[in-house]
């Protein structure tokens, strides 16, 4: 019985973790090509959710069309952000670029509710409420769908980075000058990675919006995504999956046992503890690339 309780917490946690991983994917995509920590991903996911809700609800588009168009809009939103804001920062210290992404996160957090209204919107993507019964375990249907979608999208991202285009993006993250010298259009490569981050944001926003409703709190996913990305190692797509599952399980299992004892509230500590411990013990994460030092 106790074991079953644990398994149920772990299983649902793992699925939620995969949905975190999908947000974290946007951070990793950008880091893998430009070496910049993208701190705007939480707000991008929130904007993605708002856009799809807006297309589907006030504008009345069929859900599938709203999803497709929303994903496209977020792709161009990501590219536009790179083109209009980040490209001006070429030659500036990386910390300035990171601050710019953080500033954008804060700006979007405020402006999306201002534009569409602060009240929480419901977004129904047609996944039922009843849990799936697996033996004695109850599995949340929305989490299961979200986890599956996340795994598929992350798998696609992995394939992409091993394609010719993807190899070029990785080359850009290794050495921008050398990339120019062999004919890679560095600016465009980085723009594409932001566009892909926009797609990841749209998908994550839709899944999370359907689970918890659409409002500004979606952007708080940034903290969870950062925990996952840092634990996984910022530039490892595979790492994001493992770390996502780990964070998700910890976040579900620890409160499941400890909250009744201390009166709740441990859940939100997990992500921040993961960030801190990773930075202290293994700064490049579980699967992050090592700096190559040859003598």
């Amino acid at each position, binding site marked *: 019985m106790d074991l079953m309780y644990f398994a149920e917490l772990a299983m649902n946690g793992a699925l939620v973790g995969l949905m975190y991983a999908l947000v974290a994917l946007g951070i990793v995509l950008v880091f893998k090509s430009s070496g910049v920590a993208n701190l705007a991903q939480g707000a991008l996911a929130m904007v993605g959710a708002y856009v799809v809700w807006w297309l589907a609800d006030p504008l009345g588009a069929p859900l599938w069309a709203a999803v497709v168009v929303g994903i496209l809009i977020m792709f161009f939103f990501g590219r536009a952000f790179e083109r209009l804001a980040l490209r001006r920062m070429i030659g500036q210290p990386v910390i300035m670029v990171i601050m710019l992404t953080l500033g954008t996160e804060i700006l979007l957090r405020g402006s999306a509710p201002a534009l569409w209204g602060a009240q929480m919107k419901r977004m129904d993507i047609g996944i039922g409420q009843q849990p799936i019964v697996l033996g004695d375990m109850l599995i949340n249907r929305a989490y299961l769908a979200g986890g599956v979608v996340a795994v598929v999208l992350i798998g696609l991202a992995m394939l992409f980075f091993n394609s010719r285009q993807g190899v070029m993006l990785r080359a850009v993250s290794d050495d921008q000058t050398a990339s120019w010298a*062999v004919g890679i259009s560095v600016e465009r490569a980085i723009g594409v990675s932001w566009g892909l981050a926009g797609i990841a944001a749209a998908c994550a926003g839709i899944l999370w919006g359907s689970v918890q409703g659409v409002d500004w709190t979606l952007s708080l996913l940034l903290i969870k995504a950062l925990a996952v990305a840092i634990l996984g190692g910022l530039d490892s797509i595979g790492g994001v999956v493992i770390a996502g599952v780990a964070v998700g399980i910890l976040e579900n299992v620890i409160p499941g046992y400890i909250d009744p004892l201390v009166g709740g509230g441990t859940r939100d500590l997990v992500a921040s503890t993961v960030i801190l411990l990773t930075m202290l013990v293994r700064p490049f994460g579980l699967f992050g690339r090592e700096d*190559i030092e040859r003598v």
Partner: protein
Amino acid sequence: MLSLGNVEVVYDRVFLAVKGVSIEVSEGGMVALLGANGAGKSTTLKAISGLLMPERGEVTRGEVRFNGRDVAHLSPPERVRLGIAHVLEGRRVFEHLTPDENLIAATSMHRDRRRIAELREKVYGYFPRLKERLSTKAGYLSGGEQQMLAIGRALMIEPKLLMLDEPSLGLAPYLVDEIFAILEQLNRDGVGILLVEQNAAAALDIASDAYLIENGRIVMSGAAGTLKENPDIQEFYLGRAGRKDYHAVKHYRRRKRWLA
């Protein structure tokens, strides 16, 4: 094929690093550009490949022509597509990619997958050693292997002009011989080469023409054989021992000051 006319390069809008350099490389030629540290060799190559931009450098005067076309306003990737390849100082391979991925990264200008496969085989033909290290990350290759990879990567773009910035840097003499032999081979196969070197002896052996740059100015140029015989070159760049008489040094200093 390549013609620099009175090119002047300024860094950060104030620092004049190259002061009116003119260089010619003919179709399929092999030209050496020699000079001491800080003379402006790398800067000259960057003016040709367009890589001054990320370093806040700028061509402020003169022209860079490639096959008759003024390329000064083209981006580095556009110049690559014209056939200008720049092998950077210090090799600069993509450390976290495998050798094979390093080659693939340099194929953005090619559409045809078969062509890419052929080019790869051709590169491995020149550098069979790279094929033995296919699954190692390039950062873990030896210095010589990295230099070979950097050259091989440049060959993937099918250059008409291959510019190399100190390919002998930090390599054992037998490796320098090996790499220079391959450069000769490439040149015989029709690739024009502009070779920047501090190792003047090796460079003058394979080049047909050479330029000597000092303080951002060309101070001597001509057939490689003639330069090799020049007493100043012998004294200061080929390091001939036993001829260090004071008079020659003073003569050279005077000459340098006059040229500056």
